[in-house]
């Protein structure tokens, strides 16, 4: 059931900074992972150290986040979301999903293309900073949504609740060095690096 917050490690990236070129550039990856993600990780540790929160699992904390300080919401979400984000991308990614998640997407949204359009739209229309998600709801159906800042669908404060299986960071820091104001170009590029094997794993775990 995972690691207690106090024992969490700042995991290595599963690939090199330049591995997602040309879709996501090496400089963006380096700053995003080593500065932004690292700051969320360190701030989560600082905000929970010596408290009962340090003895909890992050997912458990996120589910009841309304009861905890805003620094834990922002940094706990920030750590969870970025860790998920790195895992759902791969230099060998892209293409179409296979297996159970592919079937579930077709059942839920009609076609892969219509799912993609919904997801693109959620990512494009999130005003300000935030994330777009594909998640599995309690009834095991799929839904596409977005959350502001570093919130995510695990949190009790989220408008859309579920277990995230795919997430896209649409904070400007995720794309500004390469795409500047052109968020839609970044979103299109993202599909070339989606690690569908990881999405499938997360999907199977979520419906288990």
């Amino acid at each position, binding site marked *: 059931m995972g690691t207690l917050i106090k024992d969490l490690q700042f995991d290595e990236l599963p690939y090199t900074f330049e591995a997602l070129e040309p879709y996501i550039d090496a400089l963006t990856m380096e*700053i995003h992972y080593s*500065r932004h993600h690292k700051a969320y990780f360190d701030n989560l540790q600082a905000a929970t150290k010596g408290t009962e929160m340090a003895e909890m699992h992050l997912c458990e904390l996120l589910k009841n986040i309304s009861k905890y300080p805003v620094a834990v919401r922002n940094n706990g979400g920030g750590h969870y979301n970025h860790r998920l984000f790195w895992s759902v991308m791969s230099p060998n990614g892209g293409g179409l999903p296979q297996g159970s998640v592919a079937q579930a997407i077709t059942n839920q949204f009609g076609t892969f293309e219509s799912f993609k359009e919904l997801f693109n739209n959620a990512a494009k229309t999130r*005003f300000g*900073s935030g994330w777009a998600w594909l998640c599995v709801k309690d009834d095991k159906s799929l839904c596409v949504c977005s959350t502001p800042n*570093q919130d995510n669908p695990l949190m009790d404060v989220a408008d859309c609740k579920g277990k995230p299986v795919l997430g896209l960071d649409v*904070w*400007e820091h995720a794309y500004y060095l390469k795409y*500047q104001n052109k968020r839609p170009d970044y979103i299109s590029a993202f599909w070339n690096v989606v690690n569908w094997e990881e999405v499938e794993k997360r999907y199977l775990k979520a419906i288990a």
Partner: protein
Amino acid sequence: MSFELPALPYASDALEPFISKETIDYHYGKHHNAYLTNLNKLIVGTEFEHASLDEIVSKSDGGIYNNGAQVWNHSFYWKCLSPKGGGQAGGKLLEAIVRDFGSFDAFKEQFTTAAATLFGAGWVWLSKDSSGLLHITKESNAGNPLKHALTPLLTIDVWEHAYYIDKRNLRPAYIEDFWKLVNWETPEGLYV
């Protein structure tokens, strides 16, 4: 009625080395302009089609508010900066700052902290209320103090697009440079 992009009050390279021409070209030429284009499209056929920008910011919500307030906020932000800026406030504004925050430095520190700690995208404002008291407020995304019956005097944009090309993740470095560019004539003129 459709709104127009106000001219920048200086050349796009005038704020260098603190804010680069490249940042201004995107920030003014793309972001500000896109909010304006969106606003002009969104108001067609609504109660706001013939409204002033102040009315839109005070009364609308949703997409019209987001784009309208972003047009207002950016137009105002450009006026809060100047290549001849920096230093400290003067006149009646300085008196009010000292009265309400203790000293100019204490005000600067409070405003800096607000700008550094606003989580996500947004704006930090110095405003006055109807009795002339000063307030520092943090507003997420497009948030504008007119919505809360405050009169904006000074603002800093802390959306990442305002500083990411020049400063990357280092928002505090951007805030530090902001003080070297503040055009105090803008808040001084609005305070009286």
